[in-house]
């Protein structure tokens, strides 16, 4: 690494129609630093990086490298200038090998345009050995674990001699252990002279690895700060007002067990057992959180309860009644409230008004319907009281739900599901893509429901959220239940469980040292 670059973004503005995604953003990335861009979802971090990488043309402003202005017409210009990017959603062709993916766009060839992947393999081996990546150049990318795929992305950048590496929300898809490994890789890269722009909204990681933190809120730079800044202060910079990060919840007061799952197995269309012989109970007045890396059967498990899965065996009993084999409608009328993991797909009808979305499950019942006619007045009446109760920020009850922010959409879903007397409440990813301010509110509502004596099941891939809310934590791995542990279980043990290692053998391996930021909960 001979070149060490200084990168400067000066007055970058990017608008999409009337939406201002970036508003005169100034950022200077000094050589050999890990520079973090901290901001909530939708603050404009990814847009800014796509401008830097040449994917978007800035509406206004300049990019300077070593104080000289440059213009990137496409990613190839950015790569030629020494900038590499690891996207949040990996830019890897799943059916290609690692070597093919790395070669793509800068393919070494023999005479006549024939590929010469031997060179690429050698380069991959070199980088892999240097950083201990352990990547096989001939493996198919779709067969690799997510963490390894991410390393392939990093290799792609390094092969092109990137001096500045942009990592866009790199830890979103990783287990805690993989995250730690990534943070180490970042430190190693820095030691070798690579500057890193680290985009994240997770305070713990940001504080652990950054040299300098720039906070972005609603497309503007709020300020720069040092990693020593306290988490509360960082969070309030990010959100724009002071937020309470720790939820002071009363201890659970579990009563009788009313929800029982026994030997639940769900078979996917390809024959795989995506949920494999799972048994657990939830008592009234307690929250059970299902933790695990995305795609380990959580989705199918909740859908099985709802009656959305076809090939289900085993038993799911609520208040003594069997739910397996029932239709969704029957399950809902048994008193199950359900917040699906993807609100825009399964939770709301985006083109329907907020008011209509609030009665999606009750539209055919009195008082909203009489015979074949609906009562719009009652629907609106219901809407205004729900909107007030759940603090939904919407221009009016008639505004299309799709136009609301993520947090407000989630409040609409939650308001609808919690508006009936429930016997079981299930929430999948209750705060995914939701602003920090709304998270607090949504969490409080879930606790309130628990304290009313409803059994609550939370599914979350965010370990912080799990540890925050849960009274007991169940960890899933490859469709199997690794174990159920009490809420105070350490992050390390949970991390190992998420990788499939049961708590008994996991505990011995987990380092007992507490983390620097052990106290924070964001």
């Amino acid at each position, binding site marked *: 690494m001979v070149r060490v670059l200084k990168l400067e973004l000066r007055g970058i503005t990017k608008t999409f129609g009337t939406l201002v995604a970036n508003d005169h953003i100034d950022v200077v990335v000094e050589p050999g630093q890990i520079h973090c861009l901290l901001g909530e979802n939708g603050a404009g971090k990814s847009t800014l990086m*796509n401008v830097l*990488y040449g*994917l*978007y043309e800035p509406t206004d402003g300049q990019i300077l490298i070593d104080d000289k202005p440059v213009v990137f017409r*496409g*990613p*190839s210009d950015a790569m030629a200038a020494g900038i590499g*990017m690891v*996207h949040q959603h*990996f*830019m*890897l*062709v*799943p*059916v*290609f090998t690692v070597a*093919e*993916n790395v070669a*793509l*766009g*800068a*393919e070494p*060839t023999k005479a006549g*345009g*024939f*590929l010469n992947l031997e060179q690429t393999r050698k380069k991959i081996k070199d980088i892999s050995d240097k*950083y201990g*990546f352990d990547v096989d150049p001939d493996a198919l990318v*779709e*067969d690799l*674990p*997510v*963490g*390894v795929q991410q390393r392939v992305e990093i290799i*792609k950048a390094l092969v092109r001699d990137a001096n500045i590496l942009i990592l866009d929300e790199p830890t979103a*898809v990783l*287990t805690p*252990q993989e995250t*730690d*490994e990534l943070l*180490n*890789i970042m430190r190693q890269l820095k030691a070798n002279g690579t500057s890193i722009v680290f985009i994240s909204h997770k305070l713990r990681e940001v504080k652990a690895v950054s040299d300098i933190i720039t906070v972005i809120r609603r497309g503007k730079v709020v300020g720069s700060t040092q990693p020593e800044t306290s988490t509360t202060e960082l969070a309030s910079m990010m959100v724009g007002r002071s937020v309470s990060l720790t939820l002071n919840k009363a201890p659970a007061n579990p009563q009788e067990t009313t929800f029982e799952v026994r030997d639940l197995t769900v078979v*996917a*269309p*390809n*024959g*795989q*057992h*995506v949920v494999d012989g799972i048994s657990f109970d939830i008592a009234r007045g307690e929250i059970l959180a299902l933790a695990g*890396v*995305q*795609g*380990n*059967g959580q989705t199918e498990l909740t859908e099985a309860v709802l009656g959305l899965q076809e090939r289900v065996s085993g038993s799911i009993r609520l208040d003594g009644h069997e739910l397996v084999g029932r239709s969704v409608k029957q399950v809902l009328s048994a008193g199950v409230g359900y917040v699906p993991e993807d609100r825009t797909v399964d939770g709301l009808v985006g083109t329907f008004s907020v008011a209509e979305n609030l009665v999606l499950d009750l539209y055919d019942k009195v008082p909203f319907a009489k015979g074949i006619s609906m009562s719009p007045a009652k629907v609106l009446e219901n809407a205004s009281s729900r909107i007030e109760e759940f603090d939904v920020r919407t221009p009016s009850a008639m505004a299309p739900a799709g136009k609301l922010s993520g947090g407000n959409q989630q409040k609409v879903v939650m308001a609808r599901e919690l508006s009936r007397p429930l016997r079981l409440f299930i929430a999948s990813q209750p705060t995914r893509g939701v602003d920090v301010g709304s998270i607090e509110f949504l969490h409080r509502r879930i606790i309130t429901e628990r304290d009313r004596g409803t059994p609550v099941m939370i599914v979350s891939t965010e370990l912080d959220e799990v540890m925050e809310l849960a009274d007991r934590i169940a960890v899933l791995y*490859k469709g199997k239940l690794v174990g159920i542990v009490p809420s105070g279980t350490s992050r390390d043990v949970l*991390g*190992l469980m*998420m*990788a499939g290692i049961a708590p008994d053998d996991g505990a011995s*391996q987990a380092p007992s040292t507490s983390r620097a930021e052990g106290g924070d909960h964001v």
Partner: protein
Amino acid sequence: MSTTATAPRPESTTPSSAKGISGKPVTWRTPIVLAFMAVVALLIFGILGPNQEASFGISSGGDFFQLPAIIVPAFAAGIILSIILLGLAGWTIYLKTKGTAAPAWLPVLFIVVFVVAFLIWVVGGARTPSISLAGLIAGSVTLAVPLVFGSLSGVLCERVGVVNIAIEGQLLGGAFTAAIVSSITKNPFIGLLAAALAGAVISMVLALFSIKYVVNQIIVGVVLNVLVSGLTGFLFSTVMQSDPQKYNSPEGLPIVEIPLLSSIPILGPILFKQSVVGYLMYFAVFAVWVGLFKTKWGLRVRAVGEHPQAADTMGINVNATRFWNVTLGGAVAGIGGSFFTLVAIDSFTKEISGGRGFIALAALIFGRWNPIGAFFAALLFGFADNLQSILTIIGTPVPSQFMAMLPYLVTVLAVAGLVGKSRGPAASGIPYVKG
């Protein structure tokens, strides 16, 4: 990396990924289908089989050594072959009860035996129970030529992420242009070139609308088919019919015979006694295969068709790659179309392509988006097509209308039943819009 590498990572976050098939249960589908077919074979080919001898000629007059024709007693052969079929079906059932799937070659062998039994039955029951195997196969290849070019066009387009429903229109456009240009210039090679150009132009319209203006690719393709059909039909009646001598008597492409080699029984006429278009077909299949899988161009094309955003972030111009590939695909289909008017028939008629563009599409899917697979799939359809015309001539017990359905029946069965779940390019048919 001194860290926690001891923890095995989750192997995949998508449980539905292709790898996890290990737990796939063996289904009853294959055994049931095979058993049913075997019983049908026993009943129709065996018990109700004809009592004649079927004769299959192998050598044609020009071969440098003659092989005697194969004479088979149809009834006995029907019984024996259907018992073999029953045995194979029984074996898959036995394997199923043991919980294992039948090996991949078993259904293939089953189909081959079934087809042989069918051939013996149908020939044995004919008024003249004798056909030339050599002629059957050579004719199959001839009929397959436009299909092969059409499906190669489909491969080129779909691999880059554009569905080309307009193959039919490109074949027809190529056939028309070749006829008229060759008639006027009296030079079939200029006609061939013009056919390629015509196909490319039709493809450019497809590319322009589907890539630049993001119109639904299927709709543009269907509209193009109708447009080309109407346009050629109109020009045929107004221009060609006005002076057929001048505008519709194309100079044909000569058949180039390679001495000695062309006299090898069966293989000779297929490989070494072809028109320029025929030789071009073999070359094109090979070239597209090498191009797609061994070159830089191919890697980029496949990346664009699988994950255009990944290609874009690596500095590849997705839409330009798509545009030129689709254009090239059109040119290939245009050449295929010229076969109708420069080799097979000596003049253009309305709808001369007769739906072969759609069969080519089926061949593309049956061949799993692979040039070589598409080639063999096209050969299979060509075989079915040729078989029905020969069988109609020798007078089979089956009504000729049913025989005419054979190629399409084979197409439906092949694509629906035998392909199973094949996976096309992931981004095929999805327009790429930045951001």
